[in-house]
């Protein structure tokens, strides 16, 4: 061939670094959208329509709120539609297989299990969801209650802390004091169902 093939210049999205047409498969299509509207409108003609539709919605809502209510209410309700529109919905995270990843609720679950007839252990689950290192937590618990405490792997990947003896009386107070990130309302005991400790 006499002709030299010239390198093709590819437009790569500056947000996800993929070629512009693959942005919908990229990590965050929502972020790419504004960039795409500016730089590559011909690839996603629906985006332009969407953008203009949203604008029209916003304007009509604001007009409604100002027109319908009185001045005092008008200020409050015009703030509300603004908030509702700006707060984005959490995108449901999808794993490559198409399954939906469940959102984990942050709660600490305390369970009592009988080991011998006299002895029992208290199992504390869910501290790691608050960003607490389980090894440090188990050491502190053991020291405070002068018993043995260890980190154990549960039936799933989750880990839990086993503390020897029945420490349910003080455990709630201790957790909220040592780790202020855990609110009292997030701690549950297991008694054939869940019970909220407030007292």
């Amino acid at each position, binding site marked *: *061939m006499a*002709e*030299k*093939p010239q*390198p*093709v*210049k*590819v437009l790569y999205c500056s947000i*996800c*670094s*993929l*070629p512009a*047409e*693959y942005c919908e*498969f*990229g*990590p965050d299509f929502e972020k790419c959208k504004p960039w795409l509207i500016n730089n590559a409108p011909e690839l996603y003609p629906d985006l332009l329509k969407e953008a203009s539709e949203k604008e029209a919605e916003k304007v009509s809502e604001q007009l409604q709120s100002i027109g319908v209510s009185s001045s005092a209410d008008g200020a409050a309700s015009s703030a509300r539609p603004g908030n509702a529109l700006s707060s984005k919905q959490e995108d449901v995270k999808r794993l*490559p297989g198409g399954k939906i990843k469940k959102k984990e609720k942050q709660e600490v679950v305390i369970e009592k299990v009988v080991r011998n007839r006299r002895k029992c252990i208290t199992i504390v689950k869910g501290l790691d969801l608050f960003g607490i290192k389980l090894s440090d937590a188990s050491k502190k618990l053991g020291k405070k209650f002068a018993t043995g405490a260890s980190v154990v792997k549960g039936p799933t990947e989750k880990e839990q802390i086993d503390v020897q003896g029945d420490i349910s009386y003080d455990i709630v107070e201790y957790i909220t004091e040592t780790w202020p990130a855990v609110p009292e309302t997030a701690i549950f005991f297991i008694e054939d169902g869940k019970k909220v400790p407030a007292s």
Partner: protein
Amino acid sequence: MFKKFSSEDVSSQNQVKASVQRKIRQSIAEEYPGLEPVLDDLLPKKVPLIVVKCQNHLNLVLVNSVPLFFNIRDGPYMPTLRLLHQYPNIMKKFQVDRGAIKFVLAGANIMCPGLTSPGGALDDEVEAETPVAIMAEGKQHALAIGFNKMSAKDIKAINKGIGVDNMHYLNDGLWKMERLE
């Protein structure tokens, strides 16, 4: 294959001798005749070629800190996707249908049904054990680079199992590494 790839996977980085450089150029020229006129621009003779050895018997060929080709265990040299986007016609192309795109972009190998279904296209002359470019239905640019496990005729006939191994895909570790010091 490059799902997890970072500069920590690199075990050594060496400038190669001129004789080795000539061998590499020759094997690339054989494998990709479409690249011959531009080979001098991509792999100039005077510029030192650096070969980076990584885990799993992987070698990367760098010019001016930019990875251009890679190969496994002295297999055929395959271009990086960035290079393939610039010169799309050097490799044979297979096309997969839309539904397969997101799986391929997560690193999955390409199964025969993805190539034989209505959205896919096969290039009949391709034999087994060759590198191919994987395009997507409705897209202009290559999605991934694969290595045939079965020839195109076998894929059509048997239509089961893995047809093409996914070696390098968009947004994998190698794609994210535009330069390597």
